[in-house]
C-alpha cells in the first residue's frame, strides 16, 4: 500500500475524531436546539467551533469516500476508529485530563483490533469480482460446449 493511501486513512481518522470533538464543543456553547427554536440553528452555525467542526466533517466525508474507492468497508471502518484513540491520548497528554481505566481498556481493544485488520489486504472483494468477471466468459463458453455436446446425445436418444 502506498504512502498516499496511508495518508488518506490517517485523514479519515483525524478528521472524524477532531470534527466530532470540535462540533460537540461548539454545540455545548450554543445550547440545545429544538424544532420550536429553529433560529438558534443559525446562531449555532455562526459559532466558530461549529463552523470549523463542519469543515472538518466535510474533510472526513471526502477522505472516507476516497478510502472506500480503493479499500474494503471492513478495512476502512476499524482504521477510522483510531481517531478516537488519538483523541483520548491528546486528552491525557495534551490537555492533562483524567482518562479512566475503562477508557484505557477501550483504547487497547481498538488498537489490537486495528492491528488485526492491518495484517489483511486492503481490498479483497475487488480481487474476487475481477476473478469472477474473468471466469464469466469462460463459464459461458463451457456451458456452450456442454450444450453442444449434449445436443447430439439428445438427438440420438
Amino acid at each position, binding site marked *: 500500500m502506498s504512502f498516499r493511501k496511508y495518508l488518506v486513512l490517517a485523514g479519515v481518522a483525524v478528521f472524524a475524531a477532531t470534527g466530532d470533538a470540535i462540533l460537540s464543543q461548539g454545540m455545548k456553547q450554543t445550547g440545545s436546539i429544538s424544532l420550536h427554536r429553529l433560529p438558534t440553528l443559525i446562531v449555532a452555525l455562526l459559532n466558530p467551533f461549529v463552523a470549523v467542526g463542519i469543515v472538518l466533517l466535510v474533510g472526513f466525508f471526502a477522505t*472516507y469516500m476516497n478510502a472506500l474507492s480503493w479499500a*474494503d468497508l*471492513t478495512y476502512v471502518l476499524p482504521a477510522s476508529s483510531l481517531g478516537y484513540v488519538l483523541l483520548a491520548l491528546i486528552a491525557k497528554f495534551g490537555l492533562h485530563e483524567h482518562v479512566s481505566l475503562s477508557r484505557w481498556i477501550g483504547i487497547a481493544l*481498538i488498537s489490537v483490533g486495528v492491528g488485526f485488520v492491518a495484517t489483511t489486504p486492503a481490498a*479483497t472483494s475487488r480481487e*474476487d*469480482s475481477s476473478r469472477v468477471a474473468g471466469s464469466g466468459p469462460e463459464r459461458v463458453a463451457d456451458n456452450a460446449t456442454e450444450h453442444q455436446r449434449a445436443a447430439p446425445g439428445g438427438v440420438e436418444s
Partner: protein
Amino acid sequence: MNQHSIAIAYTWASILAVALASVVGDVLLSRAMRQVGDVSDLWRRSGAWTVMRRTLGNPLFSAGVMAMALSFFSLLFSLSWGDVSLVGPAAASLTFIGNAFAAKIFLHEKVDRRRWMAAVLVAAGVALLAG
C-alpha cells in the same frame, strides 16, 4: 407496559434504527465508490470535475447519503428517549458488527477471522471509550 418500559423499548428500537440506517448507508456508499473507482487515480487522469460528476451522479451514492441522513435523524430521536451514554456507544458498536455482516453478504468482502476479531474488538473498544 408502564411508562418506563415503553421508554426502554423506544430507546432500543431507535438505536436499532440508527445502526440499521448507518449500515445501509455505509454499504451503499462503499458500493458507489467502488463503481466510481480509485478517486485519486481518476482525479489525476480526468480531473476533479469528472470525480465530482461521477460520484454525485451515482444513484447509489445519493441513496447512501439519504440513509446516512436517516441514521442521523434516528439518532436525534433516540437521544430524546435515552441517555447519550447508552445511545452513542450502543449504536456505534452495533454499526461495527452490522457492517461486518453486511460487507460479507452484500459487498462480498472476505471477512476472515482476523476481520471478525477486529470488528468485535473495535465495537467493544468504542463502547468503552464512548460510555
